[in-house]
């Protein structure tokens, strides 16, 4: 289909058919900048609730056959001369309590906790203990993996598309990853090792969405058969491409949100924070692909073209 035909062909009454994404781009940019500022402030004020994976200490999950009371758990640990930190009760039957002890335990201490808790609550507890060095290494490795994956993605998009699209795609992706961190900081959710696969999954998805839209942009530019220069021209291409791919973007995010929400409701307690990170990231990811990546690319592209034009004019004058 030719582009001009496409522009005026009959639309099929989708609620977003007349939404001008480019016109509202500054609103999106402001919202996202505000979120980033909130995130930075939150990191300074509330910091991150690092799980033992990334710091050090011991974590015990106590499970009981019936509902569990914080006092009972607290007493059990004090009886063993430990100072349990903020026990949290969870599980659909309120039968799981998670306790943190601020130090690393040796195998004899762990064995003692396991047998005493088992005799008191009936079920063998989970015990994890991490020394500071290992926690630091894990965090370092995770960050390294994220950076490496991002570089890989930029290079791939650069080869398949263009550098500016690769750059905006990665900016959108960092935006999403940072938003997950922001939510975890603001709501004081525990950050454990599973945050790394969660963020990387979101990176994969977010880039997916962004690339599908850029793919359509590329196609529509080719179809328009002319040299685009002004922001208006780019706006109409971007708007058209977003509208054309929006059903797909929304349906895809929906099919992934379905399992995530169900895991959040019915899934295991031990991966709750993981699914929470996915939930937040998915929603942010679809928003950033549509409202940030494409408009930002158009703005940057036009600026780049203007500069090049100016340079050329200067050169010809000289």
């Amino acid at each position, binding site marked *: 289909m030719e582009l001009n035909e496409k522009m005026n062909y009959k639309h099929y009454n989708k609620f977003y058919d007349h939404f001008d994404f480019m016109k509202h781009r500054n609103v999106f940019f402001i919202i996202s900048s505000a979120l980033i500022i909130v995130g930075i402030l939150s990191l300074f004020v509330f910091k991150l609730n690092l799980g033992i994976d990334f710091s050090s200490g011991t974590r015990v999950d106590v*499970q009981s056959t019936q509902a569990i009371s914080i006092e009972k758990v607290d007493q059990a640990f004090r009886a063993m001369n430990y100072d349990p930190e903020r026990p949290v009760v969870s599980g659909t039957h309120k039968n799981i309590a998670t306790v943190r002890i601020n130090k690393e335990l040796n195998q004899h201490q762990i*064995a003692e906790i396991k047998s005493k808790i088992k005799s008191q609550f009936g079920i063998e507890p989970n015990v*994890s203990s991490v020394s500071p060095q290992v926690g630091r290494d894990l965090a370092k490795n995770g960050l390294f993996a994220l950076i490496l994956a991002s570089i*890989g993605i930029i290079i791939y*998009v650069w080869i398949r598309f263009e550098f500016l699209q690769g750059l905006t795609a990665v900016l959108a992706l960092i935006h999403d990853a940072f938003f997950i961190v922001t939510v975890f900081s603001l709501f004081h959710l525990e950050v454990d090792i599973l945050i790394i696969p969660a963020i990387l999954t979101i990176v*994969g998805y977010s880039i997916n969405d962004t*690339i599908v839209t850029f793919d359509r942009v590329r196609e529509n530019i080719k179809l328009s058969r002319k040299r685009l220069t002004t922001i208006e021209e780019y706006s109409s291409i971007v708007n058209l491409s977003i509208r054309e791919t929006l059903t797909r973007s929304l349906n895809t995010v929906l099919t992934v949100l379905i399992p995530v929400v169900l895991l959040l409701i019915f*899934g295991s307690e*031990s991966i709750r924070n993981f699914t929470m990170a996915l939930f937040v990231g998915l929603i942010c990811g679809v928003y950033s692909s549509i409202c940030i990546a494409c408009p930002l690319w158009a703005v940057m592209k036009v600026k780049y073209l203007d500069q090049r034009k100016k340079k050329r004019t200067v050169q010809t004058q000289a």
Partner: protein
Amino acid sequence: MVKKGPIFSFFALLIVLGIIIGFAVNPIIHRVNLGLDLKGGFEVLYQVEPLKAGQKIDSDTMSNAVAAINKRINVLGVSEPNISIENGHRIRVQLPGVKNEQRARQLLSTTAKLEFRDYKDRLMLDGSDLKPGKAKVAFDEMNKPMVTLQLKDPKKFASVTKKIAGYAPNNQLVIWMDYQKGDSYAKEAKKSKPKFISAPSVSQELNTSDVEITGSFTAKEATNLKDLLNSGSLPVRMVEKYSTSVGAQFGQDSMKETIYAGALAVAAIMLFMLLFYRLGGLIADLTLIFYSVIVMAVFVGLQAVLTLPGIAAMILGVGMAVDANIITLERIKDELRGGKSILSAFKAGNQRALPTVVDANLTTIIAAAVLFALGTSAVKGFAVMLLISNVVTFLTSVYGARLLLGLLVHSRALNDHPWLFGVKRSDIRGIK
């Protein structure tokens, strides 16, 4: 005219695949290796440290240590142990489904250096003087458990016992396990629970190769000691740096909950696809079943271990596999709305969707590959599943769906029925 050939092929293909899957599902499910977060068990990360000052920890020492650990795990009889060297000086041991965790941990980290010393802590004999693999548990006349050993050289034992007997009244032969610098017999002998195993008095020269160790141990402790001596001492000291243990009940519950959520999710996704894309959705749902079975089969074939994050990755993979279907079906709908016939819309839609699906999946594969290369246990389990999911997606959601839908399209039975793809006739350009 509707052609019957392709329709026949379509159903024949479905029946054959259905039968294969029907027979394959059970054996596949039974061969899945469950990780310790699903069936209980524990994982320890040891830091390897030198036993003596000046001892170098190189790759040889590390592999010797791993070999010694392996022997000890054999004693425990764990079915799927996983031992790996990390960062050059750490050893990660994963023991899913281990019954007696405390015994296992003790058995793993004890250096098991048996030494015979005199009352002044001078070394007389050590593990290298023992015949390997000859330690046994026996009971004395009081029915108290003891451990019997065999020495390589009875003459050496004779000369040692002669020396010790001559120290009377300090004629004790002190048997130490994991003697460390600073330990002393004089100090420990005063304690109610001394660190050494036992300190029998030797009154005469003993010209024998059989040694009995009696001490105040229980039958269980005697068995532990025997197992340790038989699997040999560790060439290094191992310090626990990270450990996590999951109760069996916890593991089972997590698995049940997660699989329940996953099953619900798959059902919901299938329903959604059916409602939104009609016939295209039905084909997508069929390929989704094949997808799930193939992913599990590949996973089992690679002997990978299924962990909780792995199940999460699989459920997410379902979403990604469906995404490939959605991209293609949306394209076909676009072409149909543009006024193309079913056949040409199908062809054009598939053709134009392919590069998008490839780009989208390859970027995820990049992320998963990085995770696989750098991640440790939990992260790795997630990455393997994500990688398999992405590759299998090409097979089922791209080629499988195209094949199945193609047969129906080519039969011409769908002609003039765009509603089968969820396209309203009034949306088609050129039709008022």
